[in-house]
């Protein structure tokens, strides 16, 4: 197994949308490294011809009728978990920034 680098940690943090502090990076790097190396020992197991399992009771494609259930939350209840609302909408952080090429 290749060794986990600081660049790997920064890349993964970006994918996971986590802003890690320098102290956290320093703490996590050796910890994650040892776990990755440990679980990576699976590479030695012979799995030729073995199908992967993601569902243990053998269910596939469970369908239901597409209908509105009474238990759906109304707008007020759906908005009740946050103070950051505007005119009955959730307020979200801007994802676009001002253009810098003008």
């Amino acid at each position: 197994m290749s060794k986990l680098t600081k660049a790997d940690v920064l890349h993964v943090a970006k994918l996971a949308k986590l802003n890690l502090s320098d102290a956290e990076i320093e703490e996590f790097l050796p910890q994650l490294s040892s776990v990755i190396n440990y679980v990576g020992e699976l590479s030695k197991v012979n799995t030729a011809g073995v199908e992967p399992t993601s569902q243990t009771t053998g269910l596939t494609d469970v369908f239901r009728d597409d209908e509105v259930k009474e238990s759906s939350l109304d707008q007020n209840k759906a908005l009740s978990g946050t103070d950051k609302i505007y005119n009955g909408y959730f307020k979200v952080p801007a994802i676009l920034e001002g253009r810098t090429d003008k």
Partner: protein
Amino acid sequence: MNLPLTIKDTKEGLLTKKFSAVELVDEYLARIEKNKDLNAFLTISGDFAYEKAKVVDSDLQDLPLLGAVTAHKDLFLTKGVRTTAASKVLESYVPEYSATAVERMKKAGAIMIGKTNCDAWAHGGSGENSDFGPTLNPWNKKYVPGGSSSGSAASVAAGLSLIATGTDTGGSIREPANFCGVVGFKPTYGAVSRYGVIAMASSLDCVGSFGHTVEDVETIFNVVKGSDGFDSTVTDEKYEKKNGKLRIGIPKEYFVEGLDKEVEKAVLSASKVFEKEGIELVDVSLPNTKYAINVYYIIQPAEVSSNLGRYDGIRYGNARETFGAEAKRRIMLGTYVLSAGYYDAYYLKAQKVRSKIIADFDKVFEKVDAILAPVSPTPAFKLGEKLNDPLKMYLSDVCTVSANLAGIPALAIPSGFSQNKLPLGFQLMGSRFSEETLFTLGKLYQKSINYIPKLP
């Protein structure tokens, strides 16, 4: 008041008017207050408890959980009562609806008394990963109660509630039950709806319970099991009872180096009890057990990283910066093993080895009706002992994760105490949807040793 320690005694006391449900709530709230230092509860719902108790008293009916004072792990959504997953992310989240298990237990007469502490997002085996401080073991406050359902196990063990709910993704019910000396039950994957239960790793998560007796966790299971239309993995199985002579397998891979001598002795003396009762003991082998931790610590963090992706602090909860260290570690691990270039080597590989672990169990269950094994390699360990070494902490899940990977039911039962006066016990694992057989065996054990629950 002489606290009843079983559902049956509670019901009988209420139906014969030996005590009222309001008096029960008085008593439990007083005990919670007296045992505050255990840090078993994150939220006490006294008002809701009294409201329900009055309903119980005014209309005494023969309901399965009549008057059973219940603590819910803080992963279960409870309408109008704060639900945090023991994480600062959900510090002030108050749900608009309740989990199916919570609703069904309430309808069956249960009285919710509060929400229990746990490892944040159920990530841990000691309770120490809670963002609100660790829960202490009621038998010795220097020791961990086990995790992640730490507060639920401690609450039942200390008599702060009669029963409690928990979730078991890799041992999170059985291990704390074992460390606290109570019965803990993890059902078959897909037997109980997870609707309204904060998800950890969706191919592994199971909703189960704690009580003092096998009979009590069986009663709870019969109340909460079955489809609700909100969790598509749930199937309505016929749980057929096995008749005739039962056989228990002893898997040699669970009795290897690192297993505490007293734990080993406890499991072997349990096997003797079963033998005395006419159960045949059979030596069996589960050769891929040695890879279970590797597989589990790939699949579980992968699914954790996906499930925790929804917490963006927009619709509810705080921003992602408020995740604690362990949640961040697992999100990072999971994201890594799923990321481009690593998926085949880690996640897909783990799913294949998972199939081999399942095949081991399927083969053994052709020969035996249940498997007897330790729950944890050691009794409860000291607070702080493994806190700074995540890998060491993960390795203590070695005896429990296989049942989750295979989706099979498992029942943890207390058997006595170590020389240090810490609880000991064992677990029984069965084939998928063989709950009836596990309960039969568990009740047989408790009857045979004339088990009488006691509080610290």
